[in-house]
């Protein structure tokens, strides 16, 4: 407690993570249901014709620069949203131990997957 000087205010870096959370959350809200419907349900039960969603088609898409960008965003951005929620969810559940580590692991996972997918896409484009 300091009596005479003003209280020290410490700026949080949360805006960075909140920005990514918001972008990912919006993308997820608009895109994830239809994506799951397509890749998780309609394609596996064979509702699309044989020529659709096959290796050639997807590979061609993934090796175009815009296709690669779309795939990166669709796969990685939601993770910045979800891991943010998981990090805060742990606090909600009263997991108090090692908040620093929880933070590193949560955002680190989102970061790692982003880099992983980015590297794969760049490799495919280069090949």
């Amino acid at each position, binding site marked *: 407690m300091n009596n005479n000087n003003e209280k020290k*205010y410490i700026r949080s870096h949360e*805006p*960075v993570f909140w920005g990514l959370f918001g972008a990912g959350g919006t993308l997820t809200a608009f895109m994830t249901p239809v994506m799951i419907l397509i890749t998780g349900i309609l394609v596996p039960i064979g509702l699309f014709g044989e020529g659709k969603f096959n290796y050639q088609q997807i590979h061609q898409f993934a090796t175009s620069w815009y296709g690669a960008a779309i795939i990166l965003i669709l796969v990685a951005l939601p993770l910045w949203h979800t891991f943010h929620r998981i990090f805060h969810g742990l606090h909600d559940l*009263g997991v108090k131990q090692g908040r620093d580590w929880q933070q590193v692991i949560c955002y680190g996972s989102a970061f790692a997957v982003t880099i992983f997918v980015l590297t794969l896409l760049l490799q495919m484009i280069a090949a």
Partner: protein
Amino acid sequence: MANKTIKIEILRYRPEQEDKPSPQLFEVPYSPDLTILEALQYIKDHLDSTISFRWSCRMAICGSCGLMVDGVPKLGCKTFLRDYFPNKIKLEALANFPIERDLVVVMDDFINKLEEIKPYIIPEDNTKCLSDGPHQQTPEKLAKYKQYSMCINCGLCYAACPQYALDTKFTGPAALALLARYNRDSRDAGSKQRMKIVNQEEGVWGCTFVGYCSVVCPKGVDPAAAIQLLKVESSKDYLIGMFKPD
């Protein structure tokens, strides 16, 4: 309509004689136009004069009669027995605050937070003299903050907020809504000082947008919206701060 009654269970706490709260059951005459506050007054007048609770205006404007009704934060004077009858009603002191005695809570932390956000107009400069007349404001400019100025400091939103429950360092809904009220006022120039409070971890960033504060608020203040908009402001402030650190 002969002599209907309703059961009211109150979580009592008498610090001079017990270590923790315990419930006590009362039965009071029922009528559809009675409020919880009137039922409490009936209990105090006729059944047990030792019961403690706060009230003043009886018309949802002083903000002193907040309590938990069946686990939901409510104003006693704005909540009617008819909405619970014939079921038993459970009353408890406002959640997330320490209990002083019976239904009375310690609100010091809440009041300190309201004071901390500088809840007064900070004019741009002191050059304007009283004789220059009032600071003019258009109805549009008033509309920008009016809703946030309706707060009666009842604390229901703090009782509704799990983030405040988990960590009382969080500035909390009403104080942040009040902060927004002054930051959004065209006559005020204190935003820069107040953004320092907003930008902290304990400022808006303690909020995970549960949104229950806005549901329980008896005056339609919508603190959750105030906080979301302040998060946007804080993010802008963060970006500006990266290029122009002060």
